[in-house]
């Protein structure tokens, strides 16, 4: 039997909780109100310790103060989390659908034989079970699922919950690792930062985003000309960066940049959740995509099914004429 408590795996940077962590705490607050339990945040490592008091929404924060946990490495992380989950026996554990969460969540599920749901958008208690909505197929399909047993391991997409606006300082419990920590066979070496010198897309008001719909490197010029006419910069989805057509500093999304321009003109981008999470703060989204079912149209204010290769040059002309006229 599990307790009614809801655990949150916290992530921190620069002595502050990550945005996703504050969102998870907000979601956990609502869920704990329904289960009648407490919200417990887990902070791993000494480096995150200073963020413990800022875990708004948690009743209790458990900090495992061990330098081995300061940088992510799978062995020590899993050893500690497996122990804490067994000890705390929560109804659910909320984990961000982040680069660490995507590894840790399914591994814990397999170790503890616990149910796992990825890409969660909504979590509610219904009778004895949790009802969870998950996004599949690049955002084209939603699934409502039932999770009957605890601990339910739920990996949550950024933007699914809001941080709570009822701040209260949590009780903080700082401890040494409850289990001996072996470095394991996969160990952190060093962080590699992107090369400086490129355009900072996070500071741009106008962005033209290019996706796989551009098809060929030669076609990048059409988008470049449009960005220039608009007085903005080019950014891209991951396949374009994978191809090497733009540097990694231009990638928008989970493993790329988080942008907040006044205008995001998406050309041939499907709108996968991993891309959308990098453009949550955009003012106006206009999407050009030949597939009327593309999820990008769910977050755009205006859209068109025209072929981007036909539309982009016309739009460049239309902008230029209007700029001359005013």
């Amino acid at each position, binding site marked *: 039997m599990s307790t009614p408590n809801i655990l949150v795996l916290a992530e921190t940077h620069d002595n502050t909780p990550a945005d996703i962590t504050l969102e998870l705490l907000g979601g956990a607050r609502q869920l704990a109100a329904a289960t009648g339990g407490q919200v417990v945040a887990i902070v791993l490592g000494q480096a995150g310790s200073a963020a413990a008091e800022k875990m708004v929404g948690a009743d209790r924060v458990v900090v495992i103060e061990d330098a081995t946990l300061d940088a992510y*490495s*799978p062995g020590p992380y899993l050893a500690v989390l497996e122990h804490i989950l067994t000890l705390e026996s929560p109804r659910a554990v909320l984990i961000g659908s*982040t*680069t660490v969460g*995507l*590894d840790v969540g*399914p*591994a814990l*599920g*397999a170790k503890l034989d616990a149910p*796992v*749901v*990825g890409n969660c958008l909504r979590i509610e208690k219904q009778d004895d079970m949790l009802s969870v909505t998950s996004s*599949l*197929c690049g*955002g*084209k*399909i*939603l*699934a*409502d699922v*039932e999770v009957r*047993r605890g601990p339910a391991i739920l990996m949550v997409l950024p933007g699914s919950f809001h941080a709570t606006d009822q701040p209260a300082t949590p009780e903080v419990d700082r401890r040494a690792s409850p289990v001996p920590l072996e470095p394991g*066979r*996969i*160990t*952190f*070496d060093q*962080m*590699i930062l*992107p090369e400086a010198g490129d355009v900072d897309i996070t500071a741009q008001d*106008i962005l033209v985003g290019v996706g796989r719909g551009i098809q060929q490197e030669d076609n990048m010029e059409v988008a470049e000309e449009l960005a220039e006419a*608009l*007085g903005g910069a080019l950014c891209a989805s991951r396949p374009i960066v*994978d*191809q*090497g057509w733009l540097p990694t500093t231009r990638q928008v999304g989970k*493993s*790329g940049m*988080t942008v907040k321009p006044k*205008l995001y003109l998406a050309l041939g981008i499907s709108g996968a959740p991993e891309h959308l999470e990098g453009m949550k703060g955009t003012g*106006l*989204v206009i999407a050009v995509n030949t*597939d*009327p*079912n593309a999820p990008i149209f*769910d977050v755009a204010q*205006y*859209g*068109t*099914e*025209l072929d981007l290769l*036909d*539309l982009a040059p*016309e*739009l460049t002309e*239309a902008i230029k*004429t*209007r700029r001359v006229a*005013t």
Partner: protein
Amino acid sequence: MKIAVVLRQVPDLIEPLEIVGSGNALDLDGASFLVNESDDHALEQAILLKESAGATVDVVALDFGDVDNTLYSAAAKGVDRLIKITLEDDKPPAPKAAAAMLAQAIGPIEADLVLIGCQAHDELQGALGPVLALKLGLPYLGVVRGVTAGDGGLQACKEFPGAVMARMNVQLPAVLGILAAESPPRYVPVSRIRAAMKSTQFDEQPGAAEPTEPAVVVRRMYHPEPAERAEMLVGSEAEVAGRIADILIERGIVK
């Protein structure tokens, strides 16, 4: 170095996705399938390691969708062995059962390195890689972009937000969940795939499914509500371009 690569079939998202009559699963009968994108990157990474450091590459795939074409294409790229796990029915097995079948086929290879895509778009219960790793008794690292062989082990770069990567030292054996290979999957001409079809033998192995209790029950699958969708602009290219330009001027975004 011995490398095993897992290649999975997923529905092609370019085609419309249908839901079965009972409303709780994708209708796979009418779907067209292709290789999971990050698995394709895993294969490319394996071939790059074979070229740079020397390795044998064995590919393991479950038998559904368009698996034969995927395997012939892998053969044309120069892999050493193609293991096809045959299924009792032509439905994809549940994740735990799939992990068990894959582990059963991969175990005897005694691979130093197992590569699998870090995600598939039809995974409801999180990534398969960590589950497979546990079955194999190996450590797992996912969201990896680029693997290089050095003395005594490998270095793998794990992606973090902001175009930042963590370089990790990997002592073998291990399972890596690949997001992207060092360079994009290579193109193979159709003629090479045709040649591979004639000369390639699959190593077929029956997949024994362990009966497992579903941990998660799907109640309903559906397309997202179109209620909040964008206002669609229709007309000729020139008309739509004019409308967009006007909207941008009206809102003061373009001056």
